[in-house]
């Protein structure tokens, strides 16, 4: 097990793009080697050692044996964990946009809040957000047919609009409330919202959305099927979005 501890040297204002912070990139490297990896603060290339105090304990041959701990607020550090295939990242603070984008495997746990596009286009792995999430949890990129294709994202707090937009697979659980239009244009996958939400499942063709709280506005394009139990709990089941000949399942408490 190789444990890499990163402590941000300052509170960044201008966002830092640090897609080099992944277990894949850190595996088998010394603190100096990790420190030499490049991140960008706006347009200025910096080394990770400019941005973080770095400590390495133990060693690893491959990503799956790497644990990265970030101690401090990295609410202006983007793309942490991008495209990682294995290993663990623990962020003890808030983190910026596109955390875990294109993730293939491994686990990212964020003790604080995440900004928008957490788990964007992810295909595998697990992301746990203990605080709140912003917009586009597990969503796609502009114009792409699919966002999240696999893996699991759990947000213990609230999420903002467009949870799981263009979802094609995988699972998203929001323990708190979600903003407007979760499961937008989704073609697969499962979204569970334990709190309240608004206008779920617009243009859903396939997939499952379960809402345990209240829905402010239902989309006027769903066919009510009746009462159905999911894991022993009764919901009203709807099928739609009828406009797109959708067979998505929407369960509302």
């Amino acid at each position, binding site marked *: 097990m190789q444990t890499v501890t990163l402590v941000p040297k300052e509170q960044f*204002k*201008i*966002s830092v*793009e640090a897609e080099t912070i992944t277990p894949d990139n850190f595996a088998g490297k010394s603190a100096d080697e990790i420190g030499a990896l490049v991140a*960008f*603060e*706006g*347009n*200025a290339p910096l080394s990770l050692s400019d941005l973080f105090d770095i400590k390495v304990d133990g060693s690893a041959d491959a990503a799956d044996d790497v644990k990265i701990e970030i101690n401090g607020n990295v609410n*202006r550090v983007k793309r942490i964990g991008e495209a990682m295939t294995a290993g663990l990242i623990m962020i003890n603070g808030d983190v910026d*946009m*596109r955390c875990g984008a294109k993730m293939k495997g491994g686990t990212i746990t964020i003790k604080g809040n995440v900004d*928008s*596009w957490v788990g964007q286009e992810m295909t595998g792995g697990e992301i746990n957000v203990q605080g709140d999430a912003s*917009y*586009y949890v597990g969503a796609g*990129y*502009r*114009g792409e047919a699919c966002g999240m294709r696999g893996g699991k994202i759990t947000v213990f707090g609230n999420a903002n609009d467009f949870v799981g937009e263009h979802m094609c697979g995988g699972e998203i659980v929001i323990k708190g409330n979600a903003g*407007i*239009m979760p499961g*937008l*244009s989704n073609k697969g996958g499962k979204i569970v919202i334990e709190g309240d939400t608004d*206008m779920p499942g*617009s*243009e859903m063709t396939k997939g499952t959305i379960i809402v345990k709280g209240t829905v402010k*506005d*239902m*989309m*006027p*394009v*769903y*066919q*009510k099927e009746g009462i159905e139990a999911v894991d022993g709990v009764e919901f009203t089941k709807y099928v*739609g*979005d*009828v*406009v797109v000949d959708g067979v998505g399942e929407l369960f509302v408490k």
Partner: protein
Amino acid sequence: MIIKDVLCPFCGCLCDDLAVEVENNKVVDVKHACKIGASKIMGHDRIKAPMMRDDKNGEFREVSYDEAINESAKILANSKRPLLYGWASGVCEMMKKGVLLNEEVGGIIDNTASVCHGPSALGVHEKGLPTGTLGQFANRSDLVIFWGCNPVQAHPRHMSRYSVFNKGFFTTKGRKSRKVVVFDVRKTDTAEMADEYVQVNPGEDYLVLSALRAIVADKADVVPDSVGGVPKEKLVELGEAMKGAKYGMVYFGMGLTQSRGKYKNIDNAVSLITELNAYGKHSILPMRGHYNVTGFGQVCAWETGFVNAVDMSRGIPYYNPGETCSNDLLMREEIDAAFVIAGDAGAHFPAQSIARMGKVPVIQVDPFHNPTTEMANIVIPTKVSGVELEGTAYRMDSVSLRMRKLVDVDFPSDEEVLDKIIAKVREIKGASS
């Protein structure tokens, strides 16, 4: 001397039938334009010379163009996250230079669309845009819907030149050839003159659009009794009218792009129009505000592949509204220098963004005083494009036309200023590499 067929440098209508009388190198009269267009061409007080100040609360001191340009270049060259904003009331030729400057400084270039019709572009990424040129609609539409826009106020000659009153090849009876319907949250002046006004609850246009789509798809049975404040019978009636139109046209504005759902409203409206094309012919058009805001989108797209909000900090164009738009960045206090040209940030940005601009160096390139001037450190006055400078502009329907020069003035053009800044930035960056 009367100059005919002049193009108006004000709104997205880009009327090109103006007649301007010029005497002794001064505009003395403007005919055919609406009041606001005429006012712009007649001209008003302008910034006389470049000026600078270190303290935004202090007095400006007059400086030479070279000094202002060199200082601007220094600021931009040394910034980590500079924002180049505006790019609406200038010509395309200078916008190309803006894209190049952004490349040189590794910043973000964004235009006024991000507070206006930017969401329309996001809708286009999702669904496309079934549209055409304004003359197509003028000659053919028999059902005209204004949704969330008020052309009587915002595009005064639109209805007479293009959408409602004019007589076209297939619309020989002018106004009587069309049924006009307005969807809005309140009864605007345009709604007053329409054949029908449909009041929609604020923030519920998306629901109404979805309900209409269900009705058009013969799935009205799932639609509830009332959607968005509109009774189902009314929605069914409207749906049928749309299906029965020979050429249905939807013009839309901020009412859709800036209300709850934003780009999803456009996305949904586009889908409705696409689905209606199974029955008759239907098109949709955003009512663009500034006369060349469309032009920036065109230039930026062919130069970088993306329509606006392009972040060059990593050396390749990156586009992600929600992340790379001006207000996304300003509200997060990320910007360390702002360059505002041919657009008024001060007038249109939210308070938080303006607060941020208050804390960083702001360079303004504009012929006129406006709220942005209040927060500027460097001000560089230039020619008024379309009056004092010729060049290309794109009308709201993406038809490109050439603006005329009517009078001569002794100010540099936006493009000249940008060229000099680019040269100086290169010098500075070359020296440090």
